[in-house]
């Protein structure tokens, strides 16, 4: 496993108290794999990514627990200079808002070249040549001339290409893309996602795609992890999850999006609002909004149960707590349910059956 996040916990000190943004998140990404992390605002999806990248603002943020294993090393225990060598060279990030992520007073050529002078110790002239090559590779027309321009002189789609060029510059093993196309128009989004997919095919880079868009996930991801209130509530191979979600929140999300291919009547709407992170509900954080909630859900926080698919029996008897810190738990985690499916719902079986029924109708 290339990246293995284990039981990560992040808190923020705020005026209203401690906000528990990430509450025991575990996920893994294999080399060459695309994992989509799906969630709404405040679900902790970006904070998790920032912790992995080592760009979390501390303070006010604080990592209070867990491990982030990258190629077997725990990044959280590395000294800062070693961490710095990893960042950019071995893992890189693409941000949502390229205009604020790029330096406005440096030309894009200089910013790209900096990757090579700093990390590879290249001469300025060589680095510059590599920068132009990169811009060509992400298909920016007239790359040589445009390398001398500033970020504001590029369109949104072109700026996002520059971000991608910067991310792939040192051929990292992992790219984390945080809502890379959210600010773009659909036709430009399609161009950028297409470029990302092509580069990944060529280089075999693993991708963690952070998004709120169920459509984008369906297009590119191998696996998906759905986050809610700082926890992963469901994780599954992407086909399985869309066919039959095993968590009521996922089910609700899928039912609440209008579809391009049909004219809906009333949309299903998940009632209420996501909880405040300073005062998370007891038990399952989703229970105040859940149509399936019972007494158990109000008191007992559900672990990530392995989910057995069609006709299979769940392994491990359902205790997936601890999220795999050690050989045995790790194997159980990998085994999961069918294809490593897991759901943090006491009633995942019923939820799954529901989905099957509605799919059959």
């Amino acid at each position, binding site marked *: 496993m290339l990246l293995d996040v284990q039981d990560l916990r992040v808190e923020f000190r705020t005026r209203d108290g401690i906000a528990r943004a990430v509450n025991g998140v575990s996920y893994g990404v294999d080399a060459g794999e695309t994992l989509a992390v799906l969630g709404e605002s405040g679900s902790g999806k970006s904070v998790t990514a920032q912790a992995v990248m080592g760009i979390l603002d501390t303070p006010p943020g604080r990592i209070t627990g867990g491990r982030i294993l990258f190629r077997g090393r725990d990044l959280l225990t590395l000294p800062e200079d070693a961490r710095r060598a990893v960042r950019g060279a071995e893992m890189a990030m693409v941000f949502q808002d390229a205009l604020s992520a790029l330096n406005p007073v440096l030309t894009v050529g200089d910013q790209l070249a900096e990757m090579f002078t700093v990390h590879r110790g290249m001469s300025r002239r060589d680095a510059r040549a590599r920068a132009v090559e990169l811009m060509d590779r992400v298909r920016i027309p007239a790359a040589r001339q445009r390398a001398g321009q500033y970020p504001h002189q590029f369109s949104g789609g072109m700026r996002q290409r520059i971000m991608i060029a910067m991310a792939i510059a040192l051929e990292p093993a992992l790219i984390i893309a945080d809502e890379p196309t959210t600010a773009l128009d659909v036709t430009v*989004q399609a161009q950028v996602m297409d470029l990302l997919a092509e580069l990944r095919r060529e280089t075999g880079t693993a991708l963690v795609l952070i998004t709120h868009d169920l459509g984008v996930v369906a297009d590119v*991801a191998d696996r998906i992890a759905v986050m809610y209130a700082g926890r992963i509530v469901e994780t599954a191979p992407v086909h399985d999850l869309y066919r039959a979600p095993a968590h009521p929140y996922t089910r609700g999300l899928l039912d609440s999006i209008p579809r391009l291919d049909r004219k809906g009547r009333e949309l299903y709407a998940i009632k209420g609002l996501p909880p405040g992170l300073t005062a998370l509900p007891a038990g399952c954080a989703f229970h105040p909004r859940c149509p399936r909630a019972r007494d158990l859900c109000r008191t007992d926080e559900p672990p990530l149960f392995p989910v057995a698919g069609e006709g299979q029996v769940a392994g491990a008897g359902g205790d997936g707590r601890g999220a795999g810190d050690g050989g045995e738990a790790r194997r159980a985690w990998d085994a999961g349910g069918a294809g490593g499916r897991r759901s943090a719902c006491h009633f995942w079986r019923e939820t799954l059956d529901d989905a099957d029924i509605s799919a059959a109708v």
Partner: protein
Amino acid sequence: MTPTSAPLSERAAEPVLEVRDLVKHYPLTGGGLIRRRTGAVRAVDGVSFRLGAGETLGVVGESGCGKSTLARLLVSLERPTAGQIRYRGEDITRLSGRALKAVRRNIQMVFQDPYTSLNPRMTVGDIVGEPYEIHPEVAPRGDRRRRVRELLEVVGLDPGHLNRYPHQFSGGQRQRIGIARGLALRPEIIVADEPVSALDVSVQAQVVNLLAGLQRRFGLAYVFIAHDLSVVRHISDRIGVMYLGRTVETGTDTQIYDHPTHPYTQALLSAVPVPDPAARDRRARILLSGDVPSPADPPSGCRFRTRCWKARERCAVEVPALAVPEAFRDGRTPARHPSACHFAEERRVVPAEGAA
């Protein structure tokens, strides 16, 4: 949308709103002491449509296509450079003073950003009740508090929160406040510019349902402007697709989504990610090259030709009219709807429903 190509739609009753050849150009001036006019941003450049009572017209297009300028023109926040906006038969573009005020009462707007469109220093009660200050004839002073409470209830907010401030509400709740304000004067038409774009998926569904419910309850007509094609299909009876200030194709939701004939519409629809991984391999993507040209210097002829894979010489010299293409004029096919393309062809780009 033009009189010759009146919609096939059965509900083509007397329109409450009719827009004819609407144009809005923003002048560009050179620097220097004397502000000489050097050109114009042609934000809206000849848009026509009709909106029936209780009907929803969806307007889709990407950034810079002029859809937000269109919204501002419709609610008289901007004066058009040319063209007409007829409300119940009367052209409102030249009205002023009391007459304009009376019309504005009936055409209200809901804005995109629930964070900046509400005054942070006013309570919710004052925000929703403010329209009554401007149009006191709608509600007598003593009655306003009660009306505001009613409005809050109608949009699903707690009437007890009358004295709270906008920052005490979530994004979805703030959008409800904006909608309540839009409803205060009991308008006939609501122009909604990207009303759900800033909201999370689960909250977006709540607001979309609210808008649909209000339409049924009060018989509202909507001009629903958005870039999200799925949301637009969900809520609209008819749809107009805009590109660089012009309408390129218009029709019912089935005509546009299942039988598009304009290459831009086809590219746009094919680019929308569909939440169905099984459709991944079945879908043909039309990837456009390049970016949208500047509206200050639009291409000659057909404005889409610089990014169109079908473009030929004719496209550069002759502006395609928005009319039913000749090829479909006789048939009773759903492809028979106005499309501004010299080489219009039907092409299905959205996978058929339930194929998964």
